């Protein structure tokens, strides 16, 4: 479909991740409407106000039921395309029938390997070296439509969920512009079906997915999980001497041990809390959240010593949470 004019686009979104795309398409005068899902009230209000100021149509879809009104809204607006950027609800058949291939999703991970609502968490948890914004046509099932193109982004070994989401959000902004220009100038949009045999669908992480199992997970897996949970889950959950704590930042280390996994071994020269992991490896914890708040490993270690009157090294033990 060759437009020969600036395309009219509706963005369906659910949070600040979509802001660069909204800004770029807004500057290009391509936006005709923004629909927001069950986002927090401050985001809904921000987008509502900006839409009023820029004379762009706004709609709020706070629940699955409200999405049934999407089709009538589109019929009124008559956009050329609808870009979905982290919109949380399934778009129903009636809305998808607005026009064939009018809905384009900007998925925040590689497809078909990382289908599901939290691919940023999954790629970090699995220690992937890169991820992608994958642009694909939407179908009735989540993340299954033909892929138009993907924009790959390397993952640095210190990337957290937060830092990677920020990068992907920026990339999503100009990827949306690229897609819009492809719509505007291309006589057809090439796409290819996803290879279903490589497909994996990951549900939204459950509590167990964000907990450390010291006797099962390697030091690398624990470190990756901590980064994958920071900041959206305020780190990973762990039980230390029967008290819940959260670990927000950690590094792998070359240190070795000969004790059971989960044992606090003391502070290293960088004042990090060294904990034994499986296969004699260790992990160095930098930041924790305990009852009194966030603290460095050093502060935590000293306060533990003051409370118990004993050296916490070799006495504090992380419990194994089993899945």
């Amino acid at each position: 479909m060759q437009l020969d004019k600036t395309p009219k686009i509706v963005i369906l979104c659910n949070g600040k991740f979509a802001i660069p795309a909204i800004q770029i398409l807004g500057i290009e005068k391509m936006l005709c409407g923004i629909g927001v899902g069950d986002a927090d009230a401050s985001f809904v209000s921000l987008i509502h106000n900006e839409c009023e100021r820029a004379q762009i149509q706004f709609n709020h879809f706070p629940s699955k039921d409200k999405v049934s009104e999407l089709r009538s809204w589109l019929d009124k607006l008559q956009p050329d395309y609808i870009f979905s950027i982290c919109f949380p609800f399934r778009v129903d058949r009636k809305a998808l029938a607005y026009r064939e291939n009018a809905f384009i999703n900007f998925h925040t991970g590689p497809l078909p390997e990382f289908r599901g609502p939290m691919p940023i968490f999954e790629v970090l948890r699995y220690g992937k070296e890169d991820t992608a914004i994958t642009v694909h046509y939407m179908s009735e099932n989540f993340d299954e439509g033909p892929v138009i193109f993907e924009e790959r982004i390397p993952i640095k070994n210190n990337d957290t969920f937060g830092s990677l989401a920020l990068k992907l959000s920026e990339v999503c902004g100009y990827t949306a512009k690229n897609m819009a220009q492809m719509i505007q100038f291309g006589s057809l949009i090439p796409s290819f079906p996803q290879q279903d045999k490589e497909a994996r669908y990951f549900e939204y992480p459950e509590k167990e997915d964000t907990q450390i199992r010291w006797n099962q997970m390697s030091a690398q897996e624990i470190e990756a999980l901590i980064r994958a949970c920071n900041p959206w889950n305020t780190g990973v959950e762990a039980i230390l001497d029967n008290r819940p704590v959260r670990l927000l930042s950690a590094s792998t280390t070359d240190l070795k041990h000969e004790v059971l996994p989960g044992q606090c071994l003391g502070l290293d020269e960088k004042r990090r809390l060294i904990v034994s992991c499986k296969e004699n490896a260790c992990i160095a914890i930098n930041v924790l959240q305990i009852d009194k708040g966030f603290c460095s490993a050093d502060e935590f270690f000293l306060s533990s010593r003051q409370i118990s009157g004993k050296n916490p090294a070799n006495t504090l033990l992380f419990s194994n949470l089993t899945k």
Partner: protein
Amino acid sequence: MKIGLLLPRSTFYTSISFDIFNGVKAKLIADRNEQIEIYTENIGFGAEKQVVYRAAEQLIMQHDTDIIFAYISHSSAQLLRPLFASTNRVLIVLDPGANLPQEWPKSENIVYHSLNNALGAFCLGDLMKKDGIREAAFSTGYYDGGYLQTFALAKGLEKAGIQLNHNVATGYIREEFSMKDLKPYLDSNTNKALVAIFSGDFLQWFFQEMQVKFPDRKEPIYLPPFALEESMLLSAPYPGGTIKGIAAWSKNLTYDSNLEFIDTMKQKNYKLNLFSLLGWETGILINLLKQIHIPGEGKKTVSTLTGSSIETPRGKVEFDTETNTSYGSLYTANIVKNDQNNCELLISGTLDTRHSYSEMIKLELENSVSGWQNSYVCN
């Protein structure tokens, strides 16, 4: 293997498309690669997104080309990203290198083969520092100054501790082109210099202005690669005094590859300039791609190409894995007077640019943006 070429127009390099194409053709014949099918599309000045996009689309959809070489800007290449990503073809941007790499991450389907003009501008600071220069005036025009080579130049001078304390921006039609505002600066003090960025006709006008307005100038002039383009220098009046700079290439380089290029082009009566050189280097790349490219596997080809190097008439050119952009040696040079009282280029030394390149790509652009859609000299 089918190859596509997106070729531009230029007002002052009127034969730019022919020169690039002749360079490609000459190298393919020299390498007995005549069987390779080449399809070309004209993209005008390369400033209209629609024209560039549709030309590229036509080469892919209609002619099924695997690899497209295009003399286009960074912004046009960005426009084509999704097309090449979704079809998994290879886009090799023939890049004058006048703009700095933008904040866009590298694309898995795009490689920039560069003439490193901004890199040459960045290196001028070190050259001037060696000559004992401590302060400089800078002159450019509305057109040449619109590319981020100006930013690279300013940062190179800053790195070398050279103060840039007088700027003259001139208009870019002949009646408005003037260097009179340099008058307060050019007072024959020592340790001062004039650095300028002009290309094509503008360079000739610049030299005419310097010749007429400052015939007794003592300050040396320093110029980046495109100002040292030999075919244009031949028609530029020699303005007197010391004129130095950094060149990307010269007919006088003694590499075997350069001798082959010059001999072949002369035999065929083709022009020798930076554009036929770029065409010739395209032929070299085609020869390499013939060995590594698998149709429909553009990402793999790009991945193999980056990190590799080619021997060219301007020496070894390497493809940087971080930016997917090539960089080669640059050459310090002097401009001297020839028999017709015009300019001639004399190469004086070789610069290993590896370190400077890695420094330049780390520059924070500090919100500097080039608004030009067209590639350098396509106006």
